[in-house]
């Protein structure tokens, strides 16, 4: 059982990203996944998170993820809201970070992740979609960790975003997959 947590802010498609990942592994990789989104008083700009659990057999647990094996931060701005993205991590937990510079990466080192994958997800989103919405690109970065195949992510993105937006988001995902670096 693999436990995953996505952090970001309202309006960035954090919850959708969770659903895309779930579909990618459930329908295209013969696994099982559930999303447990933590809905709050929804508003644009407020910190949000979503939990995803993946397993080779049907997932029994229906509860938020407290000990994530993978953490993905779609918006480094969650630090302004004092969100502890290192909550519950183990020494093997992996961070996938949307970071436009080394300074941003350095700010996240204090959480104690041994492995950090970083890419400028927002920049790639602007380049390929024309909008600063990094959920598609960051899912590509997540695929680079080996958690899920990039092809599965591309298929799921196409399903959720439709043909036109799906193609652009798929390209953003592929670009992030190819450009993400261990930091």
């Amino acid at each position: 059982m693999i436990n995953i947590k996505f952090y970001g802010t309202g309006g960035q498609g954090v919850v959708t990203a969770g659903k895309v990942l779930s579909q990618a592994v459930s329908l295209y990789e013969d696994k099982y996944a559930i999303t447990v989104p933590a809905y709050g008083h929804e508003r644009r700009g407020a910190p949000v998170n979503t939990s995803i659990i993946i397993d080779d057999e049907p997932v029994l647990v229906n509860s938020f993820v407290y000990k994530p094996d993978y953490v993905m931060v779609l918006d480094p701005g969650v630090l302004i809201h004092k969100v502890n993205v290192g909550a519950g991590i183990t020494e093997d937990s992996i961070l996938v970070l949307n970071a436009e510079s080394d300074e941003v990466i350095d700010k996240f080192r204090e959480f104690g992740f041994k492995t950090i994958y970083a890419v400028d997800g927002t920049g790639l989103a602007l380049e390929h979609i024309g909008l600063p919405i990094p959920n598609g690109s960051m899912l590509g970065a997540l695929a680079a960790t080996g958690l899920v195949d990039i092809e599965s992510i591309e298929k799921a993105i196409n399903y959720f975003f439709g043909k036109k937006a799906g193609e652009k988001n798929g390209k953003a995902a592929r670009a992030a997959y190819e450009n993400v670096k261990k930091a």
Partner: protein
Amino acid sequence: MAYVMLDGNMAAAEAIKLARVKVISAYPITPQSSVPEMLADFVNEGKMDAQYVRVESEHSALSVATTAAMAGSRAATATASNGLALMHEVLGMTAGNRVPIVMPVVNRGIAAPWTLWCEHGDSMCERDMGWLQFYSQNVQEILDLILMAYRVCEDARVLLPAMVCLDGFFLSHSMQKVDVPDQTLVDEFIGEFKNKNTYLDPNDPMFLCDLTGNEEYTEMRYQQKVALDAVPKVVEEVFAEFNKKFGRSYKIVEGYQTEDADAVLVALGSMCGTAKYVVNKMRKEGKKVGLVKVTMFRPFPLSHIKKAIGNAPVVGVFDRSTGLGSLGGPVWNEVAAAMRRSNCEIYPYIGGIGGRDVTVENLEGIFNELLDLKDGKKAENTTWFDLKGNPMEIRQVYQNV
């Protein structure tokens, strides 16, 4: 059959579509809103041959659905929380007039304080209104239970309405892998809607819902009781037929690792999945614990509960509602009454309300406490087990107290 990814609300809407409902009248309320939204889309896009009636409240929503069914159409609505509370009066109309509506209820607490999030307090308030109640563990169960509920409710031996309850957000907004059956198989399984017994037909008029004196009222209530008594047998038949046709097995009450258990927990809803995970984990550690999962709470399945609890010496009952002013939560009350001639100790647990997560740690804590109670290491249980340390200091008022 094909696997698709659906959240709980999508599964409920899909089931209503598969049942070929002809009249929909629903009023949106968080976290149910996407059910009427999706049904409106289905009708608008021609995926459903149904009339969508826009209403101004839940009271009207159920009134329209109930009378539409009496006039000969399979009708649907869905609600949650305060919306269900506003339906309260009409719930009695639906059940008393013996109208087989199947209604998804997305469980959410009732204000005040305002909450948008999961608890069973809304449906538990309506448990004695003469409706059947089913509680879903996961998204697949929502779809399957709704399909099966149509068969049960419309059976001539029953003719009663049912709520299919799904936990707000934990199921309504949880996306899961779901096996959606073929329309032709569902058509064969559910069949066409046909009024039985009571109906509205200008060519064959009858009095319905008229003022009933005390010379008949008791007997009419008794007829409802007789219909509810018939439900478990009908449900078992329908579950068996569903299993044969669709390959998924259901039980009115499921005993999970209960046979040799030192302690069992009775629970309902999405927490049952987490509880099964915890049972598996603790069994590996040599701790004999088990789960009694209540899928059908109304009518209360007495013999099924007794059989599933078996000889377990210690029983915990997890209510996701408070039963304020009562001896315990509603499920505990009823399990305690059911087991009154047994030798087991039955402890109430209340938690997971207003959206508070029922975690692996919580459930493990409850099972460990039950084992301690059995071994005499503890004398009393912690009923409000997920209460924070300082409850009386929350929003404390300092002036004019």
